[in-house]
């Protein structure tokens, strides 16, 4: 027990290790009789719900009748499911189905960025299901959050575009 003060650092380190080992043994023993004891190894993964920051950026609304939608410099993205996009889509919109639970894979967004570069488009407009929340607006925010500039979304989504298209075809 006798030692000089302060204790040499090496000896203190060894003693610290011994204390930690002693604590580990004590912890396991106490846990065995603890009314709220836990298994030494978790049997299944903990359900940890940590909200990760959404890389949401600014996306401006675009009205369904906006001439911007028809412009050559506008790249249109359809955020609805593949089945919905196959049944009807606006112009030659690129289909990127939006999933509320999974972020859009990086490679999909990289493909989009390459398509944008090839098309020499100056803005991206996304339309979705037009629900509340609207998948088009969500995807537009996600795209904007990943560094793509000038991103907008169609207010009212595909239903509003379809109505607009129907009205347009009825005009003399």
């Amino acid at each position, binding site marked *: 027990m006798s030692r000089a*003060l302060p*204790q040499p650092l090496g000896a*203190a380190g060894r003693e*610290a290790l011994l204390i930690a080992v*002693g*604590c580990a043994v004590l912890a396991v023993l*106490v846990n065995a009789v603890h009314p709220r004891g836990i298994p030494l190894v978790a049997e299944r993964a903990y359900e940890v719900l940590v909200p990760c920051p959404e890389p949401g950026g600014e996306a401006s609304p675009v009205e369904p009748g906006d001439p911007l939608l028809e412009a050559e410099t506008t790249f249109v993205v359809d955020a609805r499911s593949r089945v919905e996009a196959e049944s009807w889509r606006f112009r030659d919109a690129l289909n990127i189905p939006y999933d509320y639970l999974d972020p859009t894979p990086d490679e999909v967004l990289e493909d989009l960025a390459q398509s944008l570069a090839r098309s020499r488009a100056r803005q991206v407009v996304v339309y979705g299901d037009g629900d509340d929340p609207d998948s088009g607006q969500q995807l537009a925010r996600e795209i904007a959050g990943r560094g793509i500039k000038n991103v907008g979304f169609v207010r009212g989504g595909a239903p509003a575009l379809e109505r607009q298209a129907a009205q347009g075809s009825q005009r003399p």
Partner: protein
Amino acid sequence: MSRVLRWRGHAWLAAPVRWYLGGLFLLACWHKIADPGAFALDVATYDLLPLVLVNLMALVLPWVELAAALLLLAGLRVRPAALLVSAMMVMFLLALATALARGLDMSCGCFAAQGADQDPISAATLVRDLVWLGLSLYVVAFDRSLLGLDRLLAARTKARAAEGG
């Protein structure tokens, strides 16, 4: 610089620092020992350890905190206890920095099992832990167990040796 390091007041200053750290760790370990399941969830939330180590860490860490706290408060084995506190602070800092870098919106889990809205991690938590790391290293460097059992035991041993000699 060496004059500053040799200042005799350090030993007196280190004693309250040691008590402060002891009290802090006593406070910190309490809820973790009482409810190891909740603390295991806190450990798992950091998402740093493999699942096989989560419970073991949640079980052992609070007891190390308790031991270090009691030893610091009593002034017994001060240097090993302060080294343990320093090692734990380094570990906490790494975990916090990683969680912050990953943008996790979570509770620190330092003093009680709280929600992310009550005890969120932030740069301030990181600074706070850095200060505590600094204090623990100060104790490692300068504490001479004034008003502590180490000094009492050393004096007793010295007296016995003198009697024997």
